[in-house]
């Protein structure tokens, strides 16, 4: 056994025993973690990466899950070897949060809402370090300082809902690092955060690792993030490790087609592509057995799909030659933030503050900015889903905001929106066929219900689903499939104009690529016009012809997407660009 080893996992088998058979979530997984190392585990949802991490902590929900085999050895500093799987629960518990700690994907829901952040951090300190409350409080505040939270005293007394997502994740890191663990397991710690916040959190983790001499297991679906933080990488696919090596090896010479697919599916920044390569371009899956097409390389894939610069320029010119489809003039959406005794508003939050722009037919206009910059409110205001304080919106010459209600109903057919969260925007008790059918019925489209049903099937096929899916319920679908269903529902009314509000932000990068491709295909095929909203500048740049950068309710920069990326004029835009994770190989 090497001196340097901190954790060794041998033949780990974690199975889930469900009604529909057994799922081998971790299927004979073996790997090791060295002292002072950051090990990345990459894979898409359901690849078994989180289950592997939870197995190390022995926190797999049982039932339905169970660790059925394998050995997990932990080598503390005193030179002993501890078989974590063999420990009784009572002896396992002191290791959790003390020797091995964990942070999770959802900072919003991972903290208990009814206790202060301070209370939740000292809990672990008092438990593991046998100190009194005053000392623990002092330690906790020190930790808050170390994770660069402003005003540790205030954070100590704050409740989770009073903090932003990034701040909550810092509290989680403080909690996890408070007892100076040997191993920190980070399960998608930045996936739910804006790219700018993600960058700050990654930097913080690097710093904390250096300070406390911990090793990190970093789990993500995004190879771009791995490149920023990890030393060594494991690639997991369907419960198995399909490739491992140093980050450099993996990025410069990927062996497994799945790894190639993951590398290729992130929107590239240096050039434009007709469509994004997807995993399926590198790997076929037939009857559970992988048949590999080893020939294709990432570079080949990019070269084949690249759009020459002249074409981009001529497309922009052609788009601009038409009259704008949508014109927004001096739009202001203010929300009441403070009211007096009689319910009269005395203070406003200016979510959208004097915004003007146009969208040309056939164009995709990108709208980028951090959480809370007002981009979502702007999208909703255009569709009259928010009360607007001032300003005008013209769609195809029609004054949208002053349109009578009955005429607005007609206009809604032409303007649609696709939301961020494919989980909560579908009614769980309605079959997806009926979900797509409903808007057609409401608007009285097509003459018979038979014709409408045929149209639903056609729509399902348009978004690469099958007619057989008609009678299934949303929970039977994956996140990417649900987003396709939402797209099909938006298309049901044959709109000309669609607002995509963070429509791919909740998806894995590999799934994101498929959905983005679908959106591009639909634009070409049906002649759609999009406003594409996201916090991730790389995705917006890939999708859009022109781009607006929004900050604090105002548009701070606008122009052709490539121009903004190559020559950003404001510090804010540069910050957004710098936050995009990139591999420097």
């Amino acid at each position, binding site marked *: 056994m090497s001196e340097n080893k901190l954790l060794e996992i041998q033949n780990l088998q974690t199975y889930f025993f469900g009604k529909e058979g057994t799922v081998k979530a971790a299927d004979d997984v073996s790997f090791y973690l060295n002292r002072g190392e950051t090990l990345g585990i990459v894979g898409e949802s359901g690849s078994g990466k989180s289950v592997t991490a939870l197995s190390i*902590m022995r*926190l797999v929900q049982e039932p339905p899950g169970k660790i059925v085999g394998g050995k997990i050895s932990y080598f503390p500093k005193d030179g002993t070897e501890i078989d974590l799987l063999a420990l009784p629960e009572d002896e396992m*518990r*002191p*290791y*959790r*949060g*003390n020797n091995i*700690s*964990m942070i*999770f994907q*959802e900072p919003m*829901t*991972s*903290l*208990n*809402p*009814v*206790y202060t952040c301070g209370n939740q951090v000292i*809990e*672990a300190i008092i*438990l*593991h370090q046998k100190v009194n409350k005053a000392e623990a409080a002092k330690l906790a505040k020190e930790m808050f300082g170390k994770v660069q939270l402003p005003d540790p005293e205030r954070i100590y007394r704050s*409740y989770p*809902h009073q903090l932003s997502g990034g701040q909550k994740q810092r509290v*989680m890191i403080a*909690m996890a690092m408070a007892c100076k663990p040997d191993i920190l397991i980070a399960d998608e710690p930045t996936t739910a955060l804006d790219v700018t916040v993600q960058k700050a959190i990654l930097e913080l983790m690097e710093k904390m690792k250096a300070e406390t001499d911990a090793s990190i297991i970093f789990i993500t679906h995004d190879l771009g993030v791995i490149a920023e933080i990890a030393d060594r990488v494991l690639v997991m696919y369907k419960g198995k490790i399909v490739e491992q090596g140093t980050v450099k090896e993996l990025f410069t010479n990927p062996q497994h087609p799945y790894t190639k697919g993951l590398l290729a599916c992130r929107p590239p920044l240096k050039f434009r592509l007709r469509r994004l390569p997807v995993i399926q371009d590198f790997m076929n899956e037939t009857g559970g057995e992988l048949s590999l097409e080893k020939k294709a390389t990432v570079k080949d894939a990019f070269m084949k799909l690249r759009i020459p610069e002249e074409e981009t320029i001529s497309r922009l010119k052609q788009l601009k030659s038409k009259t704008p489809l949508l014109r927004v003039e001096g739009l202001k959406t203010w929300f009441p933030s403070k*009211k007096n*005794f009689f319910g009269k508003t005395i203070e406003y939050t200016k979510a959208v503050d004097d915004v003007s722009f146009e969208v040309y037919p056939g164009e995709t206009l990108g709208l980028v900015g951090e959480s809370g910059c007002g981009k979502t409110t702007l999208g909703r205001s255009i569709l009259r889903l928010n009360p607007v304080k001032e300003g005008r919106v013209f769609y195809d010459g029609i004054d949208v905001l002053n349109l009578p209600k009955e005429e607005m109903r007609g206009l809604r057919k032409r303007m649609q929106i696709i939301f961020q969260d494919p989980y909560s925007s579908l009614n769980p008790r309605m079959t997806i066929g009926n979900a797509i059918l409903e808007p057609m019925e409401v608007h009285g489209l097509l003459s018979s219900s038979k014709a409408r049903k045929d149209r639903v099937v056609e729509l399902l096929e348009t978004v690469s689903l099958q007619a057989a899916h008609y009678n299934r319920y949303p929970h039977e679908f994956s996140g990417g499939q649900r987003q396709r269903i939402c797209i099909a529902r938006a298309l049901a009314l044959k709109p000309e104009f669609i607002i995509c509000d963070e429509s791919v932000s909740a998806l894995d990068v590999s799934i994101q690529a498929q959905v983005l491709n679908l959106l591009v295909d639909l634009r070409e095929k049906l002649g759609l016009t999009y406003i594409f909203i996201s916090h991730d500048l790389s995705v917006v740049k890939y999708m859009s012809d022109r781009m607006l950068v929004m900050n604090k309710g105002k548009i701070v920069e606008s122009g052709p997407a490539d121009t903004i990326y190559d020559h950003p004029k404001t510090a804010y835009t540069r910050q957004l660009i710098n936050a995009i994770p990139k591999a420097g190989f």
Partner: protein
Amino acid sequence: MIQYIIRKLLYGLVVLFLVVVVIASIIYLAPVDPARLTFGQRSDTASLESKRQELGLDKPLYIQLGKYLKDLSPLAVIEDSPRSKEKYSYLKLIPIGDSYFVLKTPYLRESFQTGKSVGAILKASVPRTAILAFSAILLAIVIGIPLGVAAALRQNSMFDNTAVVTSVLGFSIPSYVSAMLLAVFFGYYLSAYTGLQVSGSVYGLDDLGDERYFWANLILPAIALGIRPVAIITQLTRSAMLDVLAQDYIRTAKAKGLKYRTIVFKHALRNAMNPVITAVSGWFAALLAGAFFVENVFQFNGLGQVTVNALLTYDIPVVLGSVLFTASVFILVNILVDLVYVVIDPRIRVE
């Protein structure tokens, strides 16, 4: 916060005003003559007419209503007469001619039947009902919450299934049925062993004519009243706990290495309390309003029984008085519960 409470209290006053108007109108419109009811069968027209005049029943509705509201209001213009002194205790503020603008106690008038002041009747019956309601709800909390937690922690076990089935049975039985069953079994057949009686109030006169508490008389009515709240609170606690135990922050607590007990009682239970508090407060207010049937079965002489008797004899002041009291209880309990929410869940900020 204080603004919020003041606003809620003002809304409460509006509600009370509407309650008086609605109830008084219904009574006025009903084809029954309270004057006749006071005399019984043998009565002549003249004495009926004089009784009507005495009770003010010959006046139109709006005048009767106005007078009643004036009696009720804590601020009013009244004459400084012996009759006034009899009705209210008051503090003279500003003299207006012969009269005074005063701060006074509300006057709920006198019972048509007994001539006792309604205030005194409520004062005698409300404490009995309050003790009963409090005992029943305490029973529900002390049994229901632990039972619900235990069932949630052993989801789908024999224990859990039994708890669920029993609680469904529990709230399907009307309380007057369980009241009668309890009274007959434990107060009659098994009386020799339990030492309990079929009926009787918690407070009353003993054999020597002294007033005292009879605590044993509380047991059966409290159980009869408590069964349904116990069942519902068990169910609510169970489902809220199951919901909370699946939350991400419970996983965080586990990853911290906390003991199972700490996770359940510190992290899960407090989060599961919101729906339970809503149920407890709702039931408590409802029970305070008087458990008509159960009080009747046990001859408990509480508010419920007083109200029912008043309705049967068309004793308008008593009916109005007890309805007003009940409405006030609901309003106050609701404000109180809002405050409890704020304490228990920091996310709820009162605006």
